[in-house]
């Protein structure tokens, strides 16, 4: 009797006691007070990788921007200036000489030498290493020999050491803006300690990357939780104004937003869409916006008969009210676009598409009918990217302003859309976006619009455009290059292979505990500027 009674009661509170034991860590947990030397907390997503040549998403590159110092950074006019490099020069735009500043050391004490750059770049370019950013090295001579399953070489023939602080980079063809490329994550050096054998990275390196930047790792990468870094006192460049940074990993932006509202997190890099309309009220002047490199556009399948006439394309462009859509659908979180490159690159000009960018339903309709545009338009998009609203709005505008029938067609995933588009299946107009790899007009024009561009899915071919672009790429100076690019962009405005719709914008916010929060062109918080208050 006694035993049975006991049993009846144990079944019930078992879970309770277990719960208390498991959770009885109790605690302090509070957000704590901050002082001028406090650490700041910045929201990121779980990085995919933390090896410089393997990192091409913003979360990973944000962390690496703390650990590494780039060769160049960009000024107000989006022109590169030297940081870790003393000088980057070239006589002929083919052979570039990179001189490093003396005094830089890795966080493990190793002095930074030319070898560190050469080893890192070779590792990144070698195809069997499967590095995400390997394409950044494709302009360097010998890149092709490192491709394929069994490459014939392990090192780039274009990289040569001159002395400990100098190396030369030989490109396979002249490129006037090579210096602009060097600011991105892929071009960071790697210490000797990162390699277990020549050309082989140790497994542990990625868990606690050793860099030569203003911050060093504090502990290791705690997956799904955080990455912590602290000030590296021996950094010879501009010292950061905070003692350290905790990159806190969030899966959902709404959670990060709630934390910023309650000062539990200092910086959120992207305000979630559902909070955009209230962010200005919630955060006041702590809600900030800055131009980003993203360009969103609608592409025409120019290889199809019905869209081969530029007048049809211009009429469609004129029938879309960009300002209305950015305001009512995007709540001004993006900006209307009327050019083919983003405002964050040197050489950008406003409104290069001219009349085609003006909202003019009457002229649009007349032009459309004169050119004999199709009576039914399909707008294809990927259903996983939150595009439905603006596609539907655009369709409604086309219906109303051109008197055509218009439907939105959602492909489940971006990959599905790309597959159909690559196979030239008739999907009608389709949406695409472009985020730059390095700040140069060339990085928009070449992949998107040149005849053999890697992302030219709309079959646009213009020999004159290709010629101007090639001239720009090999122009003797940056200024002349930009002139050629601009001339090429003008041709695009005449042909209008795509309709530029919107520029991306960084919509970020911060807590009351930090100030001087700035975002750079690669959508990263500037860690040298940010300050903790109180």
């Amino acid at each position, binding site marked *: 009797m006694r035993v049975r009674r006991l049993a*009846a009661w144990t079944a019930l509170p078992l879970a309770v006691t277990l*719960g208390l034991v*498991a959770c009885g860590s109790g605690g*302090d947990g509070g957000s704590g007070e901050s002082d001028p030397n406090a650490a700041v907390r910045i929201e990121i997503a779980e990085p995919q990788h933390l090896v410089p040549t393997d990192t091409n998403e913003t979360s990973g590159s944000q962390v690496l921007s703390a650990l590494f110092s780039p060769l160049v950074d960009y000024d107000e006019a989006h022109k590169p200036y030297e940081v870790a490099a003393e000088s980057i020069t070239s006589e002929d735009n083919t052979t570039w000489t990179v001189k490093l500043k003396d005094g830089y050391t890795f966080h493990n004490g190793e002095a930074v030498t030319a070898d560190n750059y050469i080893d890192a770049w070779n590792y990144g370019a070698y195809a069997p290493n*499967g590095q*995400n950013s390997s394409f950044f090295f494709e302009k360097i001579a010998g890149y092709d020999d490192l491709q394929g*399953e069994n490459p014939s070489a392990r090192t780039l023939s274009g990289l040569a050491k001159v002395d400990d602080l100098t190396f030369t980079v030989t490109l396979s063809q002249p490129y006037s803006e090579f210096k602009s490329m060097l600011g991105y994550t892929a071009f960071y050096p790697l210490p000797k300690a990162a390699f277990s054998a020549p050309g082989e990275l140790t497994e542990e390196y990625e868990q606690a990357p050793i860099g030569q930047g203003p911050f060093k790792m504090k502990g290791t990468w705690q997956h*799904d939780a955080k990455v912590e870094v602290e000030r590296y006192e021996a950094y010879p460049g501009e010292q950061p104004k905070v003692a350290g940074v905790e990159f806190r990993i969030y899966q959902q932006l709404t959670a990060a937003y709630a934390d910023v509202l309650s000062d539990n997190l200092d910086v959120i890099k992207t305000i979630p869409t559902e909070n955009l309309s209230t962010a200005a009220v919630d955060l006041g002047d702590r809600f900030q916006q800055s131009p980003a490199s993203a360009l969103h556009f609608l592409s025409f399948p120019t290889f199809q008969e019905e869209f081969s006439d530029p007048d049809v394309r211009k009429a469609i462009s004129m029938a879309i009210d960009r300002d209305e859509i950015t305001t009512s659908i995007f709540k001004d979180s993006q900006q209307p676009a009327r050019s083919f490159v983003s405002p964050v690159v040197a050489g950008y000009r406003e409104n290069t598409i001219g009349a085609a960018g003006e909202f003019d339903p009457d002229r649009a309709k007349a032009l459309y009918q004169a050119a004999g545009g199709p009576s039914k338009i399909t707008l294809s998009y990927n259903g996983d990217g939150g595009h439905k609203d603006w596609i539907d709005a655009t369709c409604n505008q086309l219906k109303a302003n051109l008197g055509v029938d218009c439907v939105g067609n959602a492909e489940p995933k971006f990959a599905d859309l790309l597959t159909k588009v690559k196979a030239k299946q008739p999907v009608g107009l389709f949406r695409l976006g472009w985020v730059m790899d390095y700040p140069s007009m060339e990085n928009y024009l070449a992949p998107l619009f040149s005849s053999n561009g890697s992302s030219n899915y709309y079959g646009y071919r213009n020999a004159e455009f290709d010629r101007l672009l090639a001239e720009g790429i090999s122009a003797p100076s940056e200024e002349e290059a930009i002139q050629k690019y601009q001339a090429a962009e003008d041709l695009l405005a005449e042909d209008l292979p795509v309709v530029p719709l919107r520029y991306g914008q960084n919509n970020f916010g911060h807590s009351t505990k930090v100030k001087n929060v700035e975002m750079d062109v690669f959508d990263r918080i500037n860690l040298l500027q940010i300050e903790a208050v109180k």
Partner: protein
Amino acid sequence: MFRFIVRRLLQMIVAFFGTTLIVYALMFAGQGDPIQALAGERPVTEAQRAYLTEKYHLDATGVGGFFYRYFDYLSNLLRGDLGESLTGRSIGDILAAAWPVTIKLALIAIAVAVIFGVTAGVLAGIRRASIFDNATLLLTLLVLGIPTIVLAPLAQYYLGVRWQLFPPTAGADPDFYALLLPGIVLGSLSLATALRLTRTSVAENLRADYVRTARSKGLPRRRVVSVHVLRNSLIPVITFLGVELGNLMSGAIITEGVFNIPGVGFNLFRGIRTEDGPLVVGIVSVLVVVYLVANLVVDILYAVLDPRIRYE
């Protein structure tokens, strides 16, 4: 009893392989282009594509390719290797990091359900048709009617952000207090169900013959309720809670997301979103085991609660 447990364990093995096969097949069939999904909308270089395709045998397609990849996966699994996610992390490590916090959360939720749900259910059952009974009926209906996807952000906004009673998110290494709010949110649905179940069951048993007998024997009321009624009333509740524990461990996708708790649901959600087949199958395989064990424990508890139930 021993034979029963052995038989159940053997059944578990069959069930385990059956479910992994089905889940693997579903992921395989539903997989579009995981490499592109991983890269978002960025172009994927040929080198990167070739590297990942070879590493994860993504070129093995069709029925033959499916069985090739499934048996490859299975043979690794038997060696205790859950494989690597598409971002190159060991799935064993991911799970080892994710489980503790998910278990804590699930236990808090169950504790909330038991402490408040069962207690209130017993009270409501004893005092049928009282104000307390009607009030709990109304409240539980309300809770059952609000899905977690609404309840969690609301609780976070009001209790976490506006009134600052709880930290709005828990993070990776949370203390008990930080997990309390997500635990309550997660447990509220189980709480409501447990309350309704207990109430009905207690109310019914109070009218049973053996209760009348016990009363007429002159046993004190407290003893009648706590030993005779409660014990018999708990059988359906224990069944429910046992299954619910398995549910809570896997199903906290929304709660873990809202409160930023990097547990199992959090990783499962990421795996599904990025079409990370190995990660999803790895997590689901372990969840299957959790379910099976939870069910076994429930069945054994039956026998403890009701000696008439014998497993032979």
